[in-house]
Every structure is written in C-alpha cells, then in structure tokens.
C-alpha cells in the first residue's frame, strides 16, 4: 500500500499540489484522473522520488519514502516499476537488453537465467520473439508492452503508469488496459495509473482519485463515480465522453 499524507509541491512559489492525502491499495488498479496541468504527473513524480515534495510524506508500506537516505531510497525504488508516457526505452539497447537491464544491475542471475526471465516477461505482455529488435523498429503499442515487461522484470511491488494509452489507437489501448489489470492481479501489486481516458477508468479501474487544481477533489470506487455529486468530476466525465 502507498499512502500520501498532506503532500504539497510548489515551483518558484506557485502551488501545484495543495495537500493531497490518499491511499493506494495493494492488488488494485488505482486510477488518478484529472485535466492536464492540475498536478497528476507532479504527484506521481513526488511518489516515485523524481521530485521532492515541498511538505508532506509518502509512505510505502509504512516506510517514509520522503525521509529515507539515498541508499534506502534506491532500495525502495527497486521495488518500483514505471511505465513512462513516452515509454523511455533505451534506444541503443535491444528489447532483450532493455528488459534485462535491471536484472543485470541488481541480481546475480546468470546470463541463461536472465534470458529465461526476459522471455517470461515478454510472454506476459504477449510480445515473444522480438528480443533482438531495437525500440525504433517496433510500433508504439509494442514499445508500451516492452515498457511494461521492463517494469515487471524485477519482482516489483508497485507499478506506476503515466498516461499508458497516450498516442495509441483504441484497440491497442484496450489491450494495454487489460494487460495492466492482468499483471496487477497476477503479481498482486499496487498499480497506479495516471489517465485522461474514461474508458480505461470504467474498464479496469478499482479505486479512483480525481485531482483538481492540485487537490484530491474526489476519492472513491469506480462504480460510484457517476453518482458522486461532485460538480467538477461530473463536468470532467461529461467533457471526456463528449470528446
């Protein structure tokens, strides 16, 4: 479980997060929704340690992530997998080398063991047999899947996805959504997804947090989202479907 307690973040005095407190449960697909520029990505960056909150705390299973020293921070980060909006695969490495990367850095696996693990991860994302291709040689959807395979290569406990469906066609988006849901269930991890895509929310979401102007305007279950009574959330959902 990941817990945020009164997380605030400002850039040059401009407040972007205004005291977010929430919990993300293990074994669930937790969705963070909201319009662009309201703080979703900043919140995610604060959670994975790419940004330091101005105040407040982030807890990973009772470990205060915001107050760990650098070596402890790195240890927690090894339990984190992240799928970036642009996939962030290493261009100069093949698909196999990308997925193998963390295994090579942090485990004492032999080359054969690493290859088995890479093949297992690529099978999980339904991408077997592309080990020797470079990221530039595969499609955007395939890159996303390889990004997920890389994220789960180590035995992670937490999976973060920043706009996993951006730039993908509806069919591929649906496949990525199903994949994320499946991985969350199979590995019993805490998955947190930043998205604008309401179809994703209704298809795979368990819990939802709606961010509006840097605050968590609404928290709840997906089934309650249409009857939330929150004006901002209702407007956001209507606008999403209208789009």
């Amino acid at each position, binding site marked *: 479980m990941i817990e945020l307690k009164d997380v605030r973040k400002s850039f040059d005095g401009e407040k972007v997060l205004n005291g977010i407190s929430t919990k993300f449960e293990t074994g669930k697909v937790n969705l963070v929704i909201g319009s662009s520029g309201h703080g979703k990505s900043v919140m995610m960056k604060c959670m994975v340690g790419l940004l330091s909150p101005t105040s407040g705390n982030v807890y990973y299973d009772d470990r205060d992530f915001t107050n760990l020293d650098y070596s402890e921070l790195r240890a927690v980060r090894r339990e*984190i997998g992240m799928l*970036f909006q642009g996939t962030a695969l290493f261009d100069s490495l093949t698909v196999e080398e990308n997925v193998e990367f963390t295994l090579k850095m942090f485990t004492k696996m032999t080359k054969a063991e690493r290859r088995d693990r890479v093949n297992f991860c690529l099978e999980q994302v339904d991408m077997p047999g592309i080990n020797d291709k470079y990221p530039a040689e595969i499609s955007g959807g395939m890159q996303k899947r390889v990004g997920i395979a890389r994220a789960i290569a180590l035995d992670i406990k937490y999976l973060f996805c920043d706009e996993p469906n951006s730039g993908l066609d509806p069919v591929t988006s649906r496949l990525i959504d199903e994949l994320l849901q499946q991985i969350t269930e199979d590995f019993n991890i805490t998955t947190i997804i930043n998205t604008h895509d309401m179809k994703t929310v209704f298809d795979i979401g368990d819990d939802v947090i709606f961010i509006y102007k840097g605050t968590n305007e609404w928290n709840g279950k997906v089934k309650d989202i249409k009857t939330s009574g929150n004006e901002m959330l209702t407007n956001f959902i209507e606008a999403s479907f209208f789009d």
Partner: protein
Amino acid sequence: MTFFHEFGKYLLFLKGMFSKPEKLSVYIDRTITEMNNIGVGSLTIVVIIAIFQGAVTTLQIAYQLISPLIAKPVIGSIVSDSSMLELAPTITCLVLAGKVGSHIASEIGSMKVREQVDALEVMGINSSGYLALPKIVAGLIMIPLLVIISIFLSNLGGIIAGEASGILTSEEYLQGARQSFLPYNLFFALVKAVTYAFIITSVSAFQGYTTEGGALEVGSSSTKAVVYSAVAILFSDYILAQLLL
C-alpha cells in the same frame, strides 16, 4: 551570479556521480565501450590533424628562421618542443571538445528529454554516475593516449614536410628534436591532456544532463558543451603554463 550558480550545480553534479556502483562489472563494460567510442572513434581525425599540424609548423618555422647563421636542426627542435608543449595537447583537445564533447552532450541530453534518465532514477540507479562516470574515466585514459599519438605524428609530419620541401633532412630534424628533448615537457603535455580530458567529458556530460525541453534544447546543450569546454581548456592552458613552466 549565473556563472557561480551554474558552477555550483556542476560541482554538485560531480559529487553526485560518486556513489557505490550498483554493479561494478556493468560500469567496467560501459567504460570499455566509451574508451572505444572516444579513443578509437577519434583516431582518424587526430591522425590527420597531427600530421598536418607538424608539417605546417615546420614550413612556417623554416620560413621565419632559415638563415646561414641558424643551424637547420633548430627547426626540428622548435617544432618538436612546440608540438609537445602546446600544439599536440591543446589543438587535439580543442578538436576533441568538438567531436567528443558534442557527442556526449547530445547523447545524454536526448536521454534526458526522452525521460530515459528519469527511468534510470526510478529503477534505483544513480543516473549521473551511470551515464557520466564511464565517459569521464574513458576520457582520462584515452585522451592522453591520443595526445601521445598526436605528438609522435606531429613530428612525423614535420619530418615529411622537411624532406618533401628540401628544407631539412630527417637526420637534421631528429638531431634537433633529440637535443632539445626534456622528459619534463612530456610530463607537462600529459598533465595538460589529463586536465583537458576531464574538462571535455565532465562539462559535456553536465550540459547534457541538465538539458530541459526538446530537440532544440539538445542542440543548444551540445553547442554549449563545445563552447564551454573550449574556453575552459584555453583558460586552464594558461594556468598550467603559469604553474608548471
């Protein structure tokens, strides 16, 4: 104030590189790859520049000094000494600032703007150490070797130009070079080479690592890496000459 702010960030970047490597063997592999990129990859340009540098210097010294009162070996001694003390280390490294420096800055800068550096951090890897340290170590090993090759080839270029133009024979050139040779001059050249190697690789890595934005900013970082490295090389050239000669 901006200079001090940037210099402070540069020092913090250097400090941040030094943490216990996640896996030493991976860092050694990366260093060897970078040694190939920096050393072998720059060999052709260094060879061409060194030979022509020695050849042209010989012709120009001869043009200025040929006189019945000056022995011809003096030309060899001047070309040899100036190659070792200044031309080979400084000109070679200024060229390497352009070739190696821009490559390092654009490589790391591209990774930065495409979130690959963030990906390394999220994985628990010290991104500045992983990306910059192998390049700096590789530069510190390979650039002095390139400078030694450059010194040798400058003299070879001088000999060829002397013989081809009929100004002086290879024996006269080598006689002059031997007479004026001081081991300390070679030491000085290597001190310069190591200093310049550190400047080129670290300044360029820093420029790449602090890139924010997109393709335009990557190009801008690459240009800054070359300009700042060149200025720092010339500045340190003066300081080293003042301190060590």
